[in-house]
């Protein structure tokens, strides 16, 4: 414990020094300094490099944000050569040396996105304008990710997205300065397909409840493509207001619709509520056309599983990563996260940790912080040992392609963290798609 303390102290002073310097220096000076630099927030004159971690600290996703922040702090620690190194030891190929990034010690600043585009952009701007971050990361919603990704492009600062699942993030709204390690709705659909076929057959009648905003729509579309490809019929797709709380008025029509499968395109609180209530309406005990009624939650997280409790048992979905994976990378990460904080990391924590390391490694590979060069290193980068098998950062859309986990709610958990059971690790080849299908334009390297 005292070790941690010491680390905190030392590192913090650096972080704080950057903080204080930016705060105390007359702004006119800073402004001129920017103009003189060849790119935004060039850290070449400083002994530290500052990263920004922009996560939801208030609002519905605050717990997820807190977990992301833990992962970021751990990543910074490992980059600076402290702690056990975590996935730095398993990442291949890796040029990370444990001496910071390009020899500069890593400092960080944090901010609150409030899961609102405006607040997230304001927070990111603060990091860029005041704290001088060279890269920022985090987030727990696609709307926010897309909004700050646009900002990243405008300001010329790399954004390594946290949890964002909408196809748009690396589809029609993709940006040269934005990168996503997390998987997306399209990949969820592709991964779920074979499992659905195996478990539920090819003759089903599906009813969608969809959160009425962009992420919900893209997921509905992707899952529909998959299920209709299997031969399923889509009985109806109903949009529900975000944060409705009580979904009963959307659930009762399902009873008489003749549908035998409910697909919940909800996330977070909405999903916890709609699932809890759907189960109360006896949907899981129902028989339709001689088939057991099934519920599917295409995107899942352990925190959501905690909130939904018993109701989630046996329900299928996909997830980006789970702490119970036994590969070396996952084990190394769970070990260092678990011993630091006393509980396992969430998928949001995992993706944030990986993103931080990937960025740092790209800088090392490029030999500079100059964003266009760093971006070129990330584009098309192939790596392994980060918990999802062999992974590629596709150059065409900045989307990572890797294995996707199909999971179900654990019927017999062996501990309070053992909520998700891995049904299948769907290999990367099955979830790949053509980058051009979603359109969009990455934009220029130089801004």
């Amino acid at each position, binding site marked *: 414990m005292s070790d941690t303390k010491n680390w905190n102290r030392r590192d913090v002073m650096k972080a704080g020094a950057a903080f204080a310097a930016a705060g105390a220096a007359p702004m006119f000076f800073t402004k001129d300094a920017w103009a003189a630099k060849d790119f935004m927030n060039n850290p070449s004159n400083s002994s530290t490099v500052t990263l920004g971690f922009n996560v939801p600290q208030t609002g519905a996703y605050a717990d997820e944000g807190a977990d992301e922040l833990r992962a970021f702090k751990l990543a910074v620690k490992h980059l600076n050569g402290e702690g056990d190194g975590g996935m730095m030891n398993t990442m291949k190929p890796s040029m990370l040396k444990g001496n910071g990034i390009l020899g500069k010690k890593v400092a960080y600043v944090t901010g609150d996105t409030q899961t609102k585009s405006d607040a997230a952009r304001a927070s990111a701007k603060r990091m860029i304008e005041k704290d001088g971050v060279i890269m920022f990361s985090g987030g727990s919603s696609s709307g926010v990710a897309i909004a700050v990704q646009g900002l990243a492009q405008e300001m010329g600062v790399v954004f390594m997205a946290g949890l964002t699942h909408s196809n748009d993030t690396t589809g029609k709204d993709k940006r040269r300065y934005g990168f996503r390690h997390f998987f997306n709705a399209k990949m969820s659909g592709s991964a779920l397909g074979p499992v659905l076929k195996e478990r539920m057959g090819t003759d089903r009648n599906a009813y969608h409840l969809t959160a009425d905003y962009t992420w919900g729509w893209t997921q509905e579309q992707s899952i529909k493509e998959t299920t209709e490809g299997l031969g399923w019929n889509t009985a*109806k797709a109903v949009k529900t207001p975000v944060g409705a*709380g009580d979904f009963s008025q959307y659930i009762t029509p399902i*009873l008489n619709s003749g549908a035998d499968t409910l697909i919940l395109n909800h996330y977070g609180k909405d999903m*916890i509520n709609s699932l809890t209530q759907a189960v109360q*309406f006896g949907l899981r005990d129902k028989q339709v056309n001689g088939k057991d009624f099934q519920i599917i939650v295409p995107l899942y997280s352990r925190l959501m599983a905690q909130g939904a409790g018993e*109701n989630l048992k046996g329900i299928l979905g996909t997830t980006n990563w789970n702490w119970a994976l036994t590969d070396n990378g996952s084990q190394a990460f769970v070990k260092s996260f678990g*011993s630091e904080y006393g509980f396992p990391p969430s998928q949001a924590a995992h993706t944030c940790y990986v993103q931080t390391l990937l960025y740092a490694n790209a800088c090392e590979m490029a030999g500079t912080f100059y964003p266009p060069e760093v971006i070129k290193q990330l584009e098309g980068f192939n790596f392994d040992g980060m918990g999802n098998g062999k992974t590629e950062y596709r150059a065409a859309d900045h989307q990572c392609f890797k294995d996707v986990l199909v999971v179900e709610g654990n019927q017999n958990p*062996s*501990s309070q963290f053992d909520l998700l059971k891995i049904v299948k690790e769907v290999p990367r080849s099955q979830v790949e798609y053509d980058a051009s299908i979603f359109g969009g334009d990455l934009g220029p390297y130089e801004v």
Partner: protein
Amino acid sequence: MDAIFLQLLNGLDKGGAYALIALGLTLVFGTLGVVNFAHGALFMLGAFCAVSFQKLLTISMKVRDESITFFEAYKEVPYLEIWFGDFGSMIIDWSVPLSILLTIPTMLLIGLAMERGLIKHFYKRTHAEQILVTFGLAIVVQEVIRHFYGANPIPTPAPDIISGSAPIGLWLGLSENLVYPWWRIIYLTFSIIIITAVFAFLQLTTFGMVVRAGMQDREMVAMLGINVERKFTIVFGMAAVVAGLAGMMYAPILPPDYHMGMDFLVLSFVVVVVGGMGSLRGAVAAGFLLGILQSFASLNEIKSILPGIDQIIIYLVAVVILLTRPRGLMGRKGVMED
């Protein structure tokens, strides 16, 4: 037909929750003249009484999962189950209904403390100040809850035997697809009982008479030399209990999280105002009316004609009612019009 019947039930159920929250809000407003933005927080605290009671009952012996070495993972076995076996499990299963034992005294205490400690100093202050101070209080309460329980919703299931649905269709000789969750039926019944109890209390007791008189004309009652202050305190306590019970009973329907009060706050104000400021009957009527309309607006047939109508119906109805009936459904002249 079935669909309409079910939506009616949904509406009544929602309406029950709206009415319960609005009832306490309007009671406090009508007697104390205080606009209480912390009322939603009371609802949330009620739900967290259920959570706390469940936590209390499930204090567990922790059996370490030895296969996990990086951190301590436990399989939790509640002491109640260890000590009392099946009876213990049953008690835990019934934790939400049983938490009423904790909710009533806790909410009463919170209500009394809130009134004595803060609200009473704001009787004579402007509504703007009341809003600011109670909103501040709501944020503080919310953040304190988050500090202890986190931001993630916490599952608080209904007892096992009533966690499913009742075959209403079979009872009524209608379609077997016509089912409705037991707990929601209980919630509706419960809200009707509470509403009736509050009305009976106000109609039949001398205390209630004074309170009603106070809602009509506060200064008059004060002039009669009745100790109004003390009565106000009790009214506030009562409102807190009603809101708390509404929240507690809602926990199995909506897994509680620290922010749930804010989500209901705006809605409950709309309900109170549509009902007419200071009118208890109006609040209840508006609660049910808005609940039912909201449910019907969500029918697919209606949504296909007017997309998005389910998202705005409450506000739309509020506008229409306030324009046709200047003081809501049953409001009196001169109450909060300046």
